[in-house]
């Protein structure tokens, strides 16, 4: 039995060391999944708490939409003026844990110049990925040839992990979404 990602609120309250205030009930950080990043570090999803996150899901061998998704995240970040820009974290979680090893994520980050610290590429085990996609409202399905069908959206989380905006406009900037990012950074 390897997948126990459901975190419970009550136990969360018993573990106050890492969070000053209890998590809001509608925070995706209620989900107790563990992710591993391109540098091989493992951490619970809730470790993202405290900063505004721009989140998407992808996989490195995707040739069609995913590169555009990554570009759109870059564009969105660039559309935010300094110094607010540095308060924005970019997180892309892979649908494809079988092929997207830490090494694969690292290679992809290097090739696409997705620089730490603001960029995080991450993987989790397959059940955790399914739960995270369900929570984010994304869909995906593996095809026999190893590729995936998946929906593509950029999702904006406030510092407490609440979804505050999302866009399915990929390949260019969605002004409404950029405005939401700007606003979140101003208040976050």
């Amino acid at each position, binding site marked *: 039995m390897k*997948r126990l990602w*459901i975190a419970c609120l009550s136990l969360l309250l018993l573990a106050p060391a890492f969070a000053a205030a209890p998590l809001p009930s509608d925070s995706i950080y209620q989900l107790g999944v563990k992710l591993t990043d391109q540098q091989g570090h493992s951490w619970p999803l809730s470790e993202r708490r405290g900063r505004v996150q721009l989140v998407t899901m992808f996989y490195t061998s995707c040739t069609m939409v995913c590169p555009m998704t990554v570009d759109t995240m870059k564009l969105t970040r660039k559309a935010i003026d300094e110094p607010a820009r540095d308060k924005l974290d970019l997180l892309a979680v892979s649908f494809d844990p079988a092929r997207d090893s830490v090494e694969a994520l690292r290679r992809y980050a290097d090739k696409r110049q997705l620089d730490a610290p603001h960029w995080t590429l991450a993987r989790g085990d397959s059940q955790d990925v399914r739960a995270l996609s369900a929570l984010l*409202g994304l869909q995906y399905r593996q095809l026999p040839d190893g590729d995936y069908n998946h929906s593509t959206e950029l999702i904006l989380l406030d510092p407490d992990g609440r979804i505050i905006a999302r866009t399915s406009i990929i390949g260019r900037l969605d002004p409404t979404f950029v405005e939401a990012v700007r606003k979140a950074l101003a208040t976050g």
Partner: protein
Amino acid sequence: MGTFVMRWAWLIVGLGAAAPSLAANYVPLPGGSFASVIAADNKTAPAQIAPFRLRTEPVTNAEFLAFVTAHPEWRRDRVASVFADGQYLSHWASPDTLGADALPRQPVTRVSWFAAQAFCQSEQARLPTWYEWEFAAAADAHRPDARGDPAWRDRILSWYTRPSNTALPLVGGDPDVHGVRDLNGLIWEWVDDFNALLVSGDNRDQDGADKLRFCGAGAANLREKENYATLMRVAMLSALKAADTTNNMGFRCARPK
């Protein structure tokens, strides 16, 4: 930071002597190559299903009550709103009492996907995948795949055309050839990969037009369009988000072989 991932949590549950889920009955199903309504490659490829075991009955109110008693974080008054909507278990008399509208042997409904997953984990199981569920539901009393028989389809359709304004029957319908009960004609059931069906909310644009919407291919092409009985179940599942609950949506669990 963030040390609250409880990989050990289910052990505590598993040791709970009162957990009725341990009594749940699972039977083996062979799986194999299966002509699903959702082609594996969106064209014609059959699904390949590994042998698995399936709970013979949907989870009942009594079983789910035992679960929330052992895991109070899943009580309706304590569950995090990301995991279950406002109607979660709302037909129960109180957060820890069933009452007149939720009989012990009725299938539990108004449960979210997250709650269903958590329950299945508590009995060392998981939700079945769509292909596993569809494979199992293709059976009738005599055949593992009765889908070519109009009687099989009619039985499902007669359930669809019955409005849900009367109380749900109790679990315990006649067993099929595998010994599984109530797959069709009692409730909707969650599947593990409910968000893998990729069916457009608009029934009519199922080929070509949406190629760009999804990486790599169009939305899932539904095979055998005349097999609308199954198609309606796909439509129902794809209408839901993981925290949603409805009056007729319950679940059962599965295990690897």
